[in-house]
């Protein structure tokens, strides 16, 4: 039966080819606008580090008088929390942009990376390809060791297994102890307060232990808030960080119990510190999950959600127009339906036949929407906005597109098909 309905629908689409094209095109424009904006929403709604960031929490210590939680910690403070060892997997980190060259100072390049302390690889879920992570002894001794990714290894040495070789930063030698796979969070989730433009994550090509890096004169990208917090207190790439809050502490906590325990520890820690006069004001300690932290700091550009809303409303408009077109088309052909009714077809069968037809039109719309979506994504990529690079097509989005197209087709056809099914056959035949 379904095959026969499909055949009928195809015949009628060919017969009313102009109206079919108009319906398909109108639906396609609406669907394409929706899919383009949904692709961006999907990018920003997902986890910044799939599989890892759901268990990652950032520590904030904020004066109780302030409303916005502050994740920037001074180095001694972060070190004290790390040394308390209340969580297995945690790390203090800050962005850096050093100039790196090989042992002889050749092939120099400026690259983005992290200054870190603690178990940085396990915390962020960065996989090692060769070598090993640093040890606590190396961290405590400020040993000049470095982790680089295969991309940087290729760039500097033309090979990827470069464990044991040396790189030069600021004229100091650092020994490569591990080579990681190229790693880049999908979105920026740390350092939300710093002056790094754009909502997308940057690749981490090099990871340096904080102590050794500072000793070698390699500082964080931004010194954050120092001292009295005047507007000119920001300094770039400096190692004079006394009194500056420039590090973030990220902790991996897998269970709610572990999280509650860690929060308790933080509160006690803050109270003890205040008791010893480390803080001038009473401090409030809190943990934020990755997603909560990003939402709190409005890391998803407003434009993304707004455009999706606009596109959704536009699809609704297109669909309401198509309802009109399909109704006109079905009612124009009601004489045929009436003859089929007179020959014994039930109302349900008439309804099913028309639904198949409108779903076929929806499928046609989906087919046209495919290139239009690619065009839309291309247009977004050409826009001078920070999230332009996120406009990449994913194949799972095309499955969604197909579902949306078929659903839209069935939806716009439902009411007209029901109306045609209800037409009294006798009068229709007479009028037709």
């Amino acid at each position, binding site marked *: 039966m379904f095959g026969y309905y499909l055949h009928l629908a195809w015949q009628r689409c060919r017969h009313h080819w102009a109206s079919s094209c*108009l319906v398909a095109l*109108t639906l396609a*424009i609406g669907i394409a606008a929706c899919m383009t904006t949904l692709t961006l929403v999907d990018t920003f709604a997902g986890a910044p580090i799939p599989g890892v960031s759901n268990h990652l929490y950032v520590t904030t210590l904020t004066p109780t008088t302030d409303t916005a939680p502050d994740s920037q910690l001074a180095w001694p403070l972060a070190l004290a929390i790390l040394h308390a060892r209340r969580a297995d997997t945690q790390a203090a980190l800050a962005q850096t*942009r*050093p*100039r790196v060259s090989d042992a002889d100072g050749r092939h120099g390049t*400026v690259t983005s990376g992290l200054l870190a302390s603690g178990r940085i690889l396990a915390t962020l879920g960065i996989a090692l390809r060769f070598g090993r992570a640093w040890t606590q002894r190396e961290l405590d001794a400020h040993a000049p060791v470095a982790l680089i990714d295969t991309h940087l290894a290729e760039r500097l040495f033309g090979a990827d297994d470069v464990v044991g070789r040396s790189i030069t930063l600021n004229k100091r030698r650092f020994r490569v102890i591990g080579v990681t796979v190229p790693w880049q969070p999908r979105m920026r989730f740390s350092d939300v307060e710093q002056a790094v*433009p754009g909502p997308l994550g940057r690749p981490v090509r090099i990871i340096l232990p904080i102590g050794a890096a500072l000793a070698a004169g390699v*500082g964080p990208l931004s010194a954050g808030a120092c001292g*009295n917090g*005047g*507007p*000119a*207190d*920001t*300094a*770039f*790439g*400096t*190692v*004079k960080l006394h009194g500056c809050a420039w590090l973030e502490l990220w902790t991996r906590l897998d269970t709610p119990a572990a999280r509650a325990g860690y929060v308790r520890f933080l509160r006690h820690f803050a109270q003890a510190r205040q008791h010893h006069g480390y803080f001038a004001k009473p401090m409030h300690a809190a943990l934020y999950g990755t997603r909560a932290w990003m939402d709190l700091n409005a890391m998803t550009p*407003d434009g993304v*959600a*707004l455009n999706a*809303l*606009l596109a959704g*409303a*536009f699809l*609704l*408009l*297109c669909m*309401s*127009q198509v*309802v*009109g*077109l399909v*109704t*006109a088309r079905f*009612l*124009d052909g009601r004489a045929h339906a009436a003859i089929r009714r007179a020959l014994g077809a039930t109302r349900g069968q008439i309804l099913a036949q028309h639904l198949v037809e409108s779903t076929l039109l929806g499928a046609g719309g989906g087919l046209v929407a495919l290139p239009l979506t690619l065009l839309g994504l291309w*247009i977004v990529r*050409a*826009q*001078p*906005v920070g999230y332009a690079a996120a406009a990449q097509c994913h194949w799972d989005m095309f499955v969604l597109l197909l579902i949306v197209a078929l659903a839209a087709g069935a939806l716009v056809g439902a009411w007209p098909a029901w*109306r045609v099914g209800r037409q009294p056959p006798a009068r229709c035949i007479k*009028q037709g």
Partner: protein
Amino acid sequence: MQRIIKPLLRHPAMPMLLVVQVALACAIAGNAWFMLQQKMAPLMAHVGVGQPQRLLVVTGLRARGTPWPAATLRGLETQLRQLPDVETVSNAATLPMAGQAQMLAYAYRPGRHAFVNTSVYVGDNLVKTLGLHLVAGRDFSAAEKATTLNAGMGYHRAGPVIITRALARRLFPDGPALGHAITFTGSQSQRTVVGIVAHLMRNDLTGDHRHNLDISMLFPGTPARWPAPHFAVRAKHAVDARLIQSVRRLVTQQLGPRLLAGTWPKVERFAVLRARALAPARAATWLFAAVTLIVLIVTGTGIAGMTSYQVRQRTRQIGVQRALGAPRRAVVRALQCENLLLMGLGIGVGAVLAFASNAWLIEHYAFSRLPLSLLPVGTAVLIAIGQLAVLVPARKAAGIAPVSALRAI
């Protein structure tokens, strides 16, 4: 009227659909058009810079570690000024159209608490170098320009200030601003207005600043603890490639050793800077213009499609009317009136929908209130589209021969 409404009520489904369509289109196009207006504002506003073809700007300077001392910046300024073809040079913390670094202050009159979000440009010699048009008062004196500003950047320091005419009107709506004092939230001191410039655009262009684009002010002095200084160079003639090269050479020579790794000075014509700063606004303007246009086209074709269906349905009735002596004009007018009625209803619902969705957007996103002026413009545009869309099917209806009424029975 009765003759138009009655048949609509008899078969209300299709007219209702048209009303829904128009309402949706009204809500979408209204909000899109409003966003278009917001994004377009900076493109249309006065920058305030006189003879921009003679202006060269140095951006992208980022000090590694401690910022450059004032002496270094002043030395570079002197060297730049000695280049042939250079008229004046200014060292500034921020410049118009250089949005990477921004300085803001909430300015108010002492004793009153109406704050105005104001862009601050700190630098020496900015009035001359940017070619600003002084409409009242004076430029900063040589002694004022020679001030060295530390971490406070002049917020906490008494002294002179030059403000734009728009800011003067905002702060002193009932009298002259010249010679009066203004202050800023968080500041303990006051600054005296010594001059008023015609225009000077602010340099933070994100968000809705339609009414604040021209709200800015100037502090004199050299910012000494600022890690991202800028230079503006005004040439005697239009900027040429030779001048760009010699400026770049001097800047790299003087500041190069202390630049943050991976950054380099950008020496560009002001027009290039302006084009880059306004590129997002321009792109968004095109995007929203396209959205508005597509929405209107889709609505137009929808109305045309539905009206022609209605005409097909009523062939017999129209034929009877024609047979009974109704002129063609009357048939067209009836359809036009019907369309006007439905459009009016749709626009009414749509306006409510537009303002309701706007209220929701204000609550959830950084969105501004729809201006009421949108209503008459939007109504006129939509009604015009409706009338145009109904024209073709109406003419077709007028062409129905009276005899067709007899034939169909």
